[in-house]
């Protein structure tokens, strides 16, 4: 009788060089299972009507067609939704970066009780949910006549992303040694010149991460445009998508095509910046 476990040890030893590749295979399976819903959305958008609703769904489109895509651009005015999304998201990103830069820099460089208290307050504001804030915001905007403007949505969405941007940029600035700026100032360089020529370029990675995350969050915002505007012509993509699927009846071919179009820029942007976003996200949320 052999020693218990010796057969297992032999198998384990034989498999040892393969282990990393088996783990990679496992990782591929995990990613594939996780991303299946996205795959399913894209291939469903390429199916025509009988195939789309078949009782036995096809795992890939047997007769792929772009008909739904042509239809939504020609008849559903999806181009306008995308244009509104772009206007709102870029405005939010610009406004957020302008406001966040000064605050983040000051909060990184000045350490007093009051700046520490402000950081705590900003972190608390960061988690306030828009579906709850929107009730008073709507009433206030209604009283000052801002309802039904994209400006109101830009302001409201900025409140959602600004605290997060300040906290993340503050981390970036805090990592840049203040001695670099002081050295420049000894040479007669004013503080704000030192900031633009030394500090800002060094915080470049932080800015790339923050601006792309802010953009993505603004791009996906739904509650504020839904509640603060009721003109269809002003609405961004999420509200447009909601009009296809919201009610009991859903217009699936158009909804899936629009969802695919709407999500494409997100995936492209993410693929380009994946590594930086991952590192920035982990640094910003917990530091």
């Amino acid at each position, binding site marked *: 009788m052999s020693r218990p476990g010796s057969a297992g040890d032999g198998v384990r030893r034989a498999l040892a060089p393969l282990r990393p590749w088996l*783990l*990679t295979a*496992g*990782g591929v399976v*995990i990613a594939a299972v*996780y*991303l299946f*819903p*996205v795959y*399913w*959305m894209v291939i*469903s958008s390429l199916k025509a009507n009988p195939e789309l609703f*078949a*009782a036995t769904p096809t795992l890939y489109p047997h007769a792929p067609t772009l008909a739904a895509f042509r239809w939504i651009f020609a008849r559903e005015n999806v181009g306008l939704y995308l244009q509104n999304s772009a206007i709102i998201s870029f405005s939010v990103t610009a406004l957020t970066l302008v406001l966040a830069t*000064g*605050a983040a*820099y000051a*909060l990184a*460089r*000045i350490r007093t009780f009051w700046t520490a208290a*402000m950081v705590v307050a900003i*972190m608390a*504001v960061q*988690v306030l*949910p*828009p*579906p*709850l*804030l*929107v*009730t*008073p915001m*709507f*009433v*206030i905007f*209604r009283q000052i006549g801002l309802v039904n403007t994209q400006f109101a949505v830009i302001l409201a969405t900025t*409140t959602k992303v*600004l*605290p997060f941007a300040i906290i993340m940029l503050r981390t970036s600035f805090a990592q840049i040694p203040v001695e670099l700026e002081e050295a420049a100032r000894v040479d007669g360089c*004013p503080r704000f010149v030192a900031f633009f020529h030394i500090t800002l370029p060094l915080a470049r990675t932080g800015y790339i991460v923050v601006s792309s995350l802010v953009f*993505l969050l603004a791009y*996906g915002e*739904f*509650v504020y445009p839904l*509640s603060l505007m009721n003109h269809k012509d002003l609405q961004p993509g*999420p509200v447009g*998508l*909601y009009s296809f*699927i*919201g009610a009991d009846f859903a217009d699936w071919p158009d*909804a*899936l095509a629009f*969802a695919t179009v709407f*999500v494409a820029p997100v995936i492209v942007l993410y693929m380009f910046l*994946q590594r930086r976003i*991952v590192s920035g996200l*982990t640094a910003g*949320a*917990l*530091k």
Partner: protein
Amino acid sequence: MSRDRFLDSPTIWVLLIGAAALFLLLLVGYPIAYNLVMSVQEVTLGNLPSFSRPWVGLQNYRQLLADPLFLLVAKNTLIFTVANVAVQFVLGLGLALYFQLSFPASSFLRGLVLVGWMLPPLVIGAVWKWLLGSDSGFVNYALQGLGLISGKIYWLADPLLSLVAVTIANIWFGVPFNMILLAAGLAGIPTDIYEAAALDGAGPVRRFIWITLPLLRPTIYALLSLTTVYTMRAFDLIYTMTHGGPLDSSNIFPVWSYRMSFELFDFGGGAAIATAMFALVLVVALAYVRSVNAERPM
């Protein structure tokens, strides 16, 4: 004062912080205060533009507590939050541990999983509504193919299942965030501790329980409080997939507050729910801030 001295004076710091602080004060602080005021007023579409509205004391709150929906919504919110926080954490920890093993393409594959968290919530709601459809949804087809169910499951139309359906979608959405924060926490644990423990004869399970979990504790606290408050944002998914229905079976407090304001036009009632939720969220937020500061003193 010369320009240069102005730029080096404390005034500039106050201005730099002041711009953002004023913005947040006007657009977050003021609405929260205003919300509190509205919660003790009768606010209808008619008196919306005016500032003088009938004061009703705590009547809005009393009406909410007496509302037959209150207990149902409270129960739904509790189940939804606990299920989301627990399952997202367990799955996120599992994925973080798996992708921490050294193998080719591990960080690339982990990055692929993170894509889910970047997607617009409305798209996620749409995709899951499509996947969970009763007639041509893939989930029913797959479960039938595996022999797990015989008939159709009405995920979104059955009051017993709608909360499960939106929970599944929200877990899918939240797992990558849990994974990435736990991965960051794991990466911060020095490897020599594990080596020393291994030399002392501690197996993988004991190393996990006695080293990984205690050293991960600050991350875990921060993460659990963050996920708790982020489930309040599940509004988008629920509103898209079930609208809180059928028969309010998937209604949670943020959805109830929103529908009270924007569908029943009872802004006082909506404000009362929001005020109670703000209090709850701020308590959890303070727990989060405390755990973050404990980890990394400012």
